[in-house]
Structures are given as C-alpha cells and as structure tokens.
C-alpha cells in the first residue's frame, strides 16, 4: 500500500514538468532538493534521536563546494558537483567527531556552534566565498541548462538518494540506529560502539544534505552565506516535524508543503513569514504526528464509523 503510493507519486513526478510553467518547474526542483535535505535531517532526528541544530552546515557546504570547485578551482561542473557531497561528508566527520560525544541539548548546541563558525567563514573569507555577495553564475551550461532536463536530473538524484536512505534505515545499520535511539546503554552491551555508530549516521546525513545543497545551488544559480545561517538549520526541522518524523516519507511531504506555502503566501503579502508561522503552528498543533499522521487519523475515523 505504502510502496504503491510512493510509486504513484514517482509516476506523477515524472509527468509533472510537462504540465508546469518554467517558474513552477524551478519550484518543483526546490521541493526535490529540500525533500532530500529534510529526509537526511530526519535520519538524525527521527531514526537516530539526534536533534542537530546545525544541519544547514552541510547543505551550505555542499552548495559552496560545487560553486568554489567549479568557479574558483577550475574543475568541470560535473566533477565539482560529484565532489560536493564528499566535501560535506569530510566536514561532517570533523564536526561529528567533536559533537556526537554529547547528546541532547549539548549536541544541538555544538552542531549549532560549528554551523555558525562556517557561516562566519562564508561571510568573511571573501576571496574564497564571495563574502556577502555569495557566488553567482552557477547556472549549468549545455543539456542541464534546460529546466526540464535539470528537473529530471534532480528527480533522479534525490529519489535515488532517498531510496538509499530508506534501505539504510531498514538495514542492520538502521536497526542498530533505532535501538540506539531508544536505549544506547543496552546497545553498548550487545557489542555496538555507540559513538562510532552515531558518527557514521551523522556523516551519512551530512553527505546527503551536501548533495541537496549542490542540487539547489545549480538550480538557483547562486549560493549565499545565509544558506549557512542558523535560520537555514530550522528549515529542515520544521519540514520534518510538519510532515511527521516517525514516518520515513513524512519529511518529503513536509518539504513540499513548506516550499509551496512559502511560494503562495509570499506572493500575496510581505508579511508572509508571519502568516507562514501561523499556518505551521496550526498544522503542528492539530497534527502532532505531522501530515503523514493525517492518513492514519482518517483511516481510524473511517474504520470507527464502519464498525459502529
């Protein structure tokens, strides 16, 4: 049932660009990138029980990596793009090594601090990052310059990446992660090095966030320091919670709703963050399990009346 739904969504996604204007194709690409970003974040929060408050570090590093390697270091675009998630993974190894020793709020604060460090570097190291102005002119040339082609490129990559994360969650690695979330002490006494397991999860999540960042950078054609700002770390948190952190595809739904709300509301009023905040507040209050909990709720209602 669930995989049928996912298949149906994928089929719809394949036909989508032929029904949309160019503007909406770019929005669809944004949804794809942020869906991957939110799923990578939820690997940490929903499955590993680690609330990172600095996940934007990896989205931003992925974006800056493709920009710098392509525009400043002279690599080809394809190579720079392929390197972006690896650079994000390397940064995640360093930040993770120093952060996963702590748990709970201390872990959140450490990830937050490292992300702000990177934000400062992006702002101040102008020779490398372009400072305040960021790096622009990142539109791909050739085939990928076509929005529809880029859409399919993004669809292929984010769907494949989300599938990989799905396999990971269901694998022995994911079982151990689930066990770790609930009872790290017990897990140590079945022979698992809990810290290394946390670190590995952090690095995987970082690499996929980096891929999402690179995907989005080439679609929007630029990268700015505020992608590394702390508000950018709140985005995947809101998306994941909005969609439901206990469901694997919840963050995908959350990302789509978030991006669409932002587009629709910001077109209507300059106070869009206020309206957006209220809408999200209402949704979270009404649906504590996120939008993906809505289906379950309806099913239960339906069954309830059917029995009675």
């Amino acid at each position, binding site marked *: 049932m669930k995989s049928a739904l996912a298949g149906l969504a994928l089929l719809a996604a394949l036909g989508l660009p032929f029904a949309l204007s160019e503007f909406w194709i770019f929005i669809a690409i944004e949804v794809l990138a942020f869906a991957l970003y939110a799923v990578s974040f939820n690997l940490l929060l929903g499955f590993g029980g680690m609330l990172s408050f600095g996940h934007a570090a990896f989205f931003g590093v992925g974006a800056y990596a493709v920009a710098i390697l392509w525009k400043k270091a002279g690599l080809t675009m394809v190579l720079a793009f392929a390197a972006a998630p690896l650079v994000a993974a390397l940064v995640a190894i360093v930040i993770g090594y120093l952060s996963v020793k702590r748990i709970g709020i201390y872990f959140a604060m450490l990830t937050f601090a490292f992300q702000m460090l990177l934000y400062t570097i992006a702002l101040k190291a102008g020779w490398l990052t372009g400072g305040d102005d960021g790096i622009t002119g990142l539109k791909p040339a050739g085939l990928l310059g076509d929005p529809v082609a880029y859409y399919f490129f993004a669809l292929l990559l984010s769907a494949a990446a989300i599938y990989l994360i799905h396999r990971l969650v269901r694998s*022995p690695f994911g079982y151990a992660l*689930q*066990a770790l979330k*609930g009872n790290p002490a017990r897990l140590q*006494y*079945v022979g*698992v090095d809990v810290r290394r397991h946390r670190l590995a999860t952090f690095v995987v999540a970082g690499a996929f966030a980096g891929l999402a960042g690179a995907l989005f950078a080439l679609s929007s054609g630029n990268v700015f320091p505020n992608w590394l700002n702390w508000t950018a770390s709140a985005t995947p948190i809101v998306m994941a919670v909005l969609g439901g952190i206990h469901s694997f595809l919840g963050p995908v739904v959350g990302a789509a709703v978030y991006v669409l709300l932002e587009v629709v509301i910001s077109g209507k009023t300059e106070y869009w963050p206020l309206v957006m905040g209220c809408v999200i507040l209402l949704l979270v209050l009404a649906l504590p399990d996120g939008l993906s909990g809505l289906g379950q709720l309806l099913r239960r209602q339906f069954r309830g009346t059917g029995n009675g």
Partner: protein
Amino acid sequence: MAEPVLQVRGLSKQFGGLLALCDVNLQVERGEFRAIIGPNGAGKSTFFNTLSGWLKANAGRVLFEGRDITGHPPHRLTRGGIARTFQITSVFAGMSVLENVQVAILGYRGQTWRPWTPARTQHGELARELLERVGLAGEVGRQAGTLSHGDQKRLELAIALAGNPRLLLLDEPTAGMTARERLESIHLVHRIAGELGLTVVFTEHDMAVVFAVASHISVLHQGRLLAEGTPEAVRANPEVQQVYLGEAVIESEQRT
C-alpha cells in the same frame, strides 16, 4: 588446572571522597554460579558496573580468561564474550521482541555496519530459538515495551544470550518481582546456564534466591570483600551473620 574465567585483583573505586570499593580480590572458576551479596550500600552495584566496563576503576585489574580487560569499553567486553543484564530492565522498548534479539545478534557479530540487506531477514531463526529457550516463543511479534516486567527480564536474558557469551553478569536479576517470580526466574537462568555451560556472576539481595542457586558466594561490606566460599561456609561465617543479620532485622522492622 584450567584458567579461571574471571580474576579481579585489587579493584578500587572512589567517588569523590567516598571509597566505594577497596582492594577487592576475586576469582571465579568456569561453570560457577557466583552470587555477590552484601547489605545496601556495600558496593555491589559499583563492583558490578566497574567489572562490566561501565565505570572506570581507580586501581586494580580485571582478567577474563587470563586476558587483561581492565578499562575496556562495554562494546569491546561484550564482543569478547561477556554479557550483562541491568538492574532496571533494559530492552529496546520500541522494537518487537524478535527485533530485540535480532539486533543483539547483529551487534555481537559486528554486523551492524551492513547498510543494504533488510535487517528483518537476518538471524530470524536463531532469534526464535533463543526466545523459545527463555519461554517467549509466543510473543515474538509483540512490541517489547508492552511486555510484562517478568517477560522483559526474560527478553533481556535472551538478548544477553544472543552473543554466545562465556561469562554472564546479572545485576539484580530478580529485582521488582514477586517472591514466586523470583525463584522461577533464577531457576530459569540456572537451568540455561547449566545447559550452555556458562559461568554466571550475579548480585542479589534476596537470600532465598541466593541460596537456591548459588554455587559460591562473595560477601561485600563497606566496599571490602568480607567473606567468600560455598553457601554453607558463608552462612556459617560469624562475621557475615553479624553484618547481615543486623541488616535483616532492621529491614524486617522497617517493613512492618
């Protein structure tokens, strides 16, 4: 003569100014069912947690089958053949009973790095066998957190057995049970340990449980080893009687 399974030499542990363990020496031979007893605050838990790598000792060595394992982190001890259970029942509450044992088997075998194969296809058969051994064959699909207290203890035993340990450390295995459950539970452990040829070290404060199964007893008092020997010898030891009976009288007075 065969190597002792466990040798503890001069183990000491200090918390701030409090000396919780002082120069404890202990030797456990293969196949023993060793009880560590002592009045409240005697250092049983500290001893146990230091032994199992949860706490770091200030001084002393721990040898397992002749190899020095002092200061090894829990996951390394566990992979080396030592399993433990917890005083407060500790299972993976959100996962099914079967998944609990599966994840334990994967952990002991160092297979939790596999990122691709679905985990539910791994070691299901072996996990079922273990659950059958502890009497939980009928509960494989239940969410572990919804099991009764006694059944969670059984599950924890299955988790501990999943790694084919040679030494089993049980921290108050009957805590929180009724008197009848306690004896039933410890007899189950005793029977399984016999079948598998395990060496067991357990802490316990219920004397009925201790004398029902222990092959040897070590008595801790104020962080020191007070007495050691067969149940008969320990029972007859006047020092132990003094320490213990005094405590027992006080306890029974408090209960009434």
